[in-house]
């Protein structure tokens, strides 16, 4: 109601504009954006920067986020956004309207929890969501949502112990779904002091029957720690062209905080229930640093995003230090090549987009630059192709809306 009079006024101006210009003044709003960048701005606000093209050509518009509790931890598919509102446990669906404003269109009330991971079941409209209970962060739960009708089909507790020895914080880091079986990689952390924690030396991989959630197989892996992470914030796994499933472990300070373990990439081969114990791509051994973020590029190659421990001191500047590098990883030869783009800032970002012959990076580099960089897969050429609103402090996500 409070928007009634302003909208009446805007409507009046709009009509005047039509009279005098004979062109729709709303044209700037009515374009069909192809890309959405989720920004954290200098003033502390968040916004979406919608673009027709990642090049400097084409229209763009900056819009508000739909509510002040909307965070970067949203799920996006073909122009529809889903967000779990932690404060009141509503899972809400949002869409862009004809004026490119993001509006809520439906909601489902969940039980309390923190969203840990999601996966589209067999690439259908069925969304599987995995949460941990807020109070203890020790009990896992699965929600099955039909996103077409936006109804909750099922919700059930996951059959994982709430702690292992005295490690009592559960993280559901990676999820895969094959042949009506769920495969979940999880781990446990614990607090050492009031504000220092670590993660246990074991990664657990459980295979569950999807209908009964009975554990069909449990594999323990001590080669690294903290598989994956919250996958709304950043990607940590992918299936390659041959159907093999790859995922990354993140024991560095920004996730697992078990620094004795290496950041590594692991493989679950097509048709296998267990992780291939003969395969491990040790990233830390090669670059002497930890990394967070894994994006599959095609042709047995992937992109990773790594920190530089000699540049940041601790959590006071881990996010604001220009330290993040991108490497091209050959999953078969295990060779790493640094991509020649400026150092990026921001702890954990979903800012890498693989599209056709190119990989796009949304980079926040020194000198308050917020640019889109393009890597050409065929010849490895790197170009800066456009700049984003200078009110931005961090580009936290880059999504393709089609």
């Amino acid at each position, binding site marked *: 109601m*409070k*928007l009634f009079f302003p909208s009446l006024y805007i409507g009046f101006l709009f009509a005047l504009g039509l009279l005098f210009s004979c062109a729709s003044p709303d044209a700037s709003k009515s374009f069909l954006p192809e890309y959405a960048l989720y920004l*954290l701005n200098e003033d*502390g606000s968040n916004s979406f920067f919608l673009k027709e093209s990642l090049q400097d050509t084409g229209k763009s518009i900056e819009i508000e986020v*739909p*509510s*002040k*509790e909307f*965070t*970067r931890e949203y799920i996006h598919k073909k122009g529809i956004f889903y967000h779990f509102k*932690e*404060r*009141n446990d*509503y899972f*809400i669906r949002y869409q862009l309207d004809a004026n490119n*404003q993001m*509006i*809520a*269109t*439906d*909601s*489902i*009330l969940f039980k309390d929890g*923190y969203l840990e991971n999601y996966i589209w079941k067999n690439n259908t409209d069925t969304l599987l969501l995995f949460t941990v209970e*807020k*109070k203890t*962060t020790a009990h896992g739960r699965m929600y099955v949502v039909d996103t077409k009708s936006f*109804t*909750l089909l099922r919700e059930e507790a996951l059959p994982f112990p709430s702690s292992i020895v005295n490690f009592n*914080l559960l*993280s559901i880091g990676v999820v895969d779904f094959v042949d009506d079986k769920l495969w979940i990689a999880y781990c446990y*952390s614990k*607090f050492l*002091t*009031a*504000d*220092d*924690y670590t993660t246990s030396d074991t990664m657990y991989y459980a295979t569950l029957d999807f209908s009964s959630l009975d554990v069909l197989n449990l594999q323990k892996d001590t080669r690294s720690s903290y598989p994956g*992470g*919250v996958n709304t914030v950043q990607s940590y796994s992918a299936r390659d062209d041959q159907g093999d499933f790859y995922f990354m472990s993140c024991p560095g*300070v*920004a*996730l697992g*905080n078990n620094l004795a373990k290496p950041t590594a990439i692991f493989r679950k081969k097509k048709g296998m229930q267990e992780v291939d114990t003969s395969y491990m791509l040790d990233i830390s051994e090669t670059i002497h640093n930890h990394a967070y973020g894994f994006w599959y590029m095609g042709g047995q190659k992937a992109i990773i995003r790594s920190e530089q421990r000699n540049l940041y001191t*601790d*959590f*006071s500047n*881990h*996010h*604001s230090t220009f330290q993040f590098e991108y490497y091209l990883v050959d999953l078969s030869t295990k060779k790493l090549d640094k991509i020649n783009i400026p150092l990026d800032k*921001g*702890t*954990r970002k979903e800012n890498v987009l693989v599209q056709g012959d190119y990989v796009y990076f949304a980079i926040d580099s020194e000198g308050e630059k917020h640019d889109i960089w393009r890597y050409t897969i065929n010849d490895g050429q790197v170009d800066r192709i456009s700049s984003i609103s200078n009110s931005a402090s961090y580009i936290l996500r880059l999504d393709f809306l089609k």
Partner: protein
Amino acid sequence: MDISKALLEKYELGQCNDEELAAVRAWLDAEDWGDLDLEEDIDETVKEELWADISFSVATPSITQPVVSNPRIAVIKRYWGTVVAACMIAIIGGYYYFYQPVKDFTVFQATNVESGVISFSKDHFDVVLSPNSEANIDFESGNISLTGNIMLRPKRDFVLQDGRSNQSFNFKQGEVYFVSEREEQKKLIILSKREMIFLPPVMQRRIKQQFHIS
């Protein structure tokens, strides 16, 4: 029709009558859900109330100067003991009446040994102390020191220095800061609320639980 949580649940279960269905659909089509609180924002209200309560109880005492008439010496001699007692009361009273507010203005010191958070509202800032925390904010020396974690909301811009690391930090009005002591690193970690998304999920949740943010 008022949109309540119960009504929305009914809607989700498909138990709404036509009137209710229309109301919910109209609401769903409405533009902003941010304004419609599906549930009371308990944390904010509790925090506000706490702040309000505490600021009331610790509010600057009314500056009513004790009226002292100009007594004759004879009277003073006769009531010597009483005069001394009166002076003592005046001095002690004066200390509390005058010195305390000045001290309150420049130096803030608080300890929380409770299992919940404690909030204070001061001229320069609002502050919430997590359990087992202690905070010292001294505007005279410009130093901040603490054990544990606090949330600080400045009411004006000011600069404070972490005495141990000698690092200065600009606090801006209207922003909310998370300030955490790192004993092993002998320094404070100061993050604006918006920067907390960069902390590891384990830490973010710990802080949310400590301060009842969600």
